[in-house]
């Protein structure tokens, strides 16, 4: 058992931390306020190698591990979870191709992202099918050797900026649930592809979340990722690999909340002494710190398992559910420690609270994580 990180990882963390301090923190509040997409920051992040980290080197990426990725993501999310989500978007879009794509698809689509600072998006959720992937309604009709896709995708991160999408649609009857779900890679410029309304969100407002519409979009076998009907499996495997990233979002938010709260508790006085002297505050800080540490360990364990090729859905769900719930609690406590100031836009903690809430919702709600965990636990017993 070794909890230390390698020299390369330390350098990666340093780079991300410096970037966060110098480029993200100074602008995070403004981007949040206006819901501005951080295009310049993404370009710089791309240059520094903070964007397509898990793309293998043969396709021009850094070929880093999930463990490297979450270490880096914690740093970015410390500055702004909206930017963290934006930077992670390409990795999510690429995952189905890495899992099921052909050599040609990988070369072409992953190559696009590593050659220029552009975006791709993962398009799975729909207005009436979020965490319940098998309930999706986007249909794919087979016409000879071709496919025609029609449907509406919702909550698509980077949806308005993506050059291509990994899209999940259904071949066959909706009653077959997950059996007909199939994955396609769809370039934005195909006829029938359009971007719908942009969500006006509670938090993570710098990230771009939109509807993406597919109206009679003609596709060929070149767009098919994996086989017909393999989409559900690909989506689930993608989640197994992406949920530790959400835990990284949680650790970033928590570490920031803790730092801000600690600083404020030492400055702010009540009843003649810094509030840090009160046990009630001390215990809150202690609780926050424990939640951060525990999440971090769950996250590192899940990411490490992925790197070892021992992917276990239950570990990813542990990290995601515990991390998201903890981040929400920690950010809420941070607002409480700041009192009235915590409720204003003058300090960063109210944003942490708004940003944290999304962690409990996207990539499978906290409830879905519990279902996954329970299902796996009960299967172990059988």
């Amino acid at each position, binding site marked *: 058992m070794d909890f230390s990180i390698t020299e390369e990882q330390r350098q990666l963390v340093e780079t991300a931390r410096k970037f966060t301090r110098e480029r993200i923190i100074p602008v995070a509040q403004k981007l949040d306020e206006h819901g501005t997409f951080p295009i310049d920051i993404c370009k710089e992040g791309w240059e520094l190698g903070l964007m397509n980290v898990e793309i293998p080197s043969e396709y021009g990426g850094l070929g880093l591990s999930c463990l490297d990725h979450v270490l880096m993501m914690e740093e970015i999310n410390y500055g702004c979870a909206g930017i963290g989500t934006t930077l992670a978007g390409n990795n999510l879009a690429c995952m189905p191709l890495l899992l099921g794509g052909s050599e040609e698809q990988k070369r072409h689509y992953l190559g696009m992202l590593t050659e220029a600072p552009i975006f791709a998006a993962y398009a799975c959720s729909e207005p009436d099918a979020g965490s319940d992937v098998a309930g999706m309604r986007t249909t794919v009709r087979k016409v000879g050797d071709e496919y025609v896709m029609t449907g509406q995708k919702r909550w698509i991160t980077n949806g308005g900026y993506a050059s291509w999408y990994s899209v999940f649609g259904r071949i066959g009857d909706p009653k077959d649930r997950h059996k007909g779900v199939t994955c396609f890679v769809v370039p934005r410029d195909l006829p029938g592809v359009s971007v719908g309304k942009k969500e006006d969100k509670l938090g993570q407002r710098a990230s771009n979340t939109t509807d993406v519409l597919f109206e009679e979009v003609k596709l060929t076998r070149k767009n098919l990722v994996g086989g017909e009907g393999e989409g559900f499996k690909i989506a689930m495997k993608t989640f197994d690999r992406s949920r530790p990233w959400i835990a990284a979002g949680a650790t970033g938010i928590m570490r920031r909340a803790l730092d801000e709260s600690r600083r404020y508790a030492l400055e702010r006085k009540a009843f003649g002494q810094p509030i840090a002297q*009160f*046990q*009630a505050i*001390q*215990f809150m800080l202690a609780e926050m710190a424990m939640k951060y540490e525990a999440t971090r360990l769950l996250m590192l364990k899940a990411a490490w398992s992925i790197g070892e090729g021992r992917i276990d859905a239950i570990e990813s769900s542990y990290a995601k559910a515990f991390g998201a719930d903890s981040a929400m609690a920690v950010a809420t406590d941070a607002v409480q420690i700041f009192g009235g100031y915590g409720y204003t836009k003058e300090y960063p903690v109210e944003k942490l609270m708004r940003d944290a809430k999304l962690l409990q919702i996207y990539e499978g709600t906290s409830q879905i994580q519990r279902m996954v965990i329970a299902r796996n636990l009960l299967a172990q017993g059988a």
Partner: protein
Amino acid sequence: MFEPSESQRLIRETARNYAQGSLTRIASELDREARFPAAQLGELAELGLMGINVPEAYGGAAAGAVAHALAMKEIAQGCASTAVTMGVNNMVAETICRFGTDAQKKRYVPEITSGRFVAASFALSEAQSGSDAGALRTTARRDGSGFVLNGSKQWITSGDRAGVLIVWARTEQSAAKPAKGISAFLVEGGAKGLHAGRHEDKMGLRASSTVPLTLEDVRVPATALLGNVGDGFRIALSALDGGRIGIASQAIGIASAALEESLQYAKDRRTFGQPIANHQAIRFMLADVATELEAARLLVLRAAAFKEAERPFTREASMAKVFATEKANHACDVAVQIHGGYGYVSEFAAERHYRDVRVTTIYEGTSEVQRFVIAREALK
């Protein structure tokens, strides 16, 4: 609006004086020896607490459901085992008054309210049917003008001490509507074929008696039927709604004792040169417990007031029960925590409260069943 009436206050004071005067002193001894509180129950009957919500004609106090809740809380604050036994006695007396014939009421209720029957039992649960009463399997077969009962019951409070037991049994097998075929019978203690099994070795409420029962060809006359054939499920549910108020009150009583002791201990015990009551970490725990118990108390009183006004109170009783029992568990947990090592040993009462309170989220409908009921009502 939130004030007890004169008669309610009187019942509360009577119960409080007895609990604080006699019960608290003997509670830990009863617990240690797992001794049934026969003498204490007799004294409670003399005080008029065995038929609080029962008409005077049958020896009751006719003081209503709110008074009953207030008394339960006070008695439980003194001794939770005595309180649950008293609660079941009251529930049986009330149920007979509500659904029984004149002859049944005259025969049994005065025996309970006077204390001539030291206890009465509510024999509903079985090994495979707890909160889900519709699944019970004990049978009642017609035999001439009477019935013959066969089966077994589980978790029966005072089952070996009861002068009379309400026993639920299936008079009809109906797979489609399992609740339809259930009827309730009044079976006398000592009836031929009624056997009490070994006392359950419980974590808490050790001075109350909890036994399994077996019924082997127990013959009862037609006059033993409570209500009509097939009324059993309805009778059980209506009794349980009221019973939930009782258990919620019991939980608040136990938790109030735990809070009182925590307050006292926090003032006495010193760490870092001062009473631990001066540490915010301790104060805030106490503040939360007191607030939660106040809220619980109000929920319970509301449910009791609804019952007394003969309004539907299923939702209110379930809210009171789930909230009061869970907060009471929290209160007793805090009490052990504040007492530190002393909370873990039987020298202090906190340890007993912690054990006693645990069952309150389980019996008379688990917390999960209460949530189910509340959600069903909310989604109507």
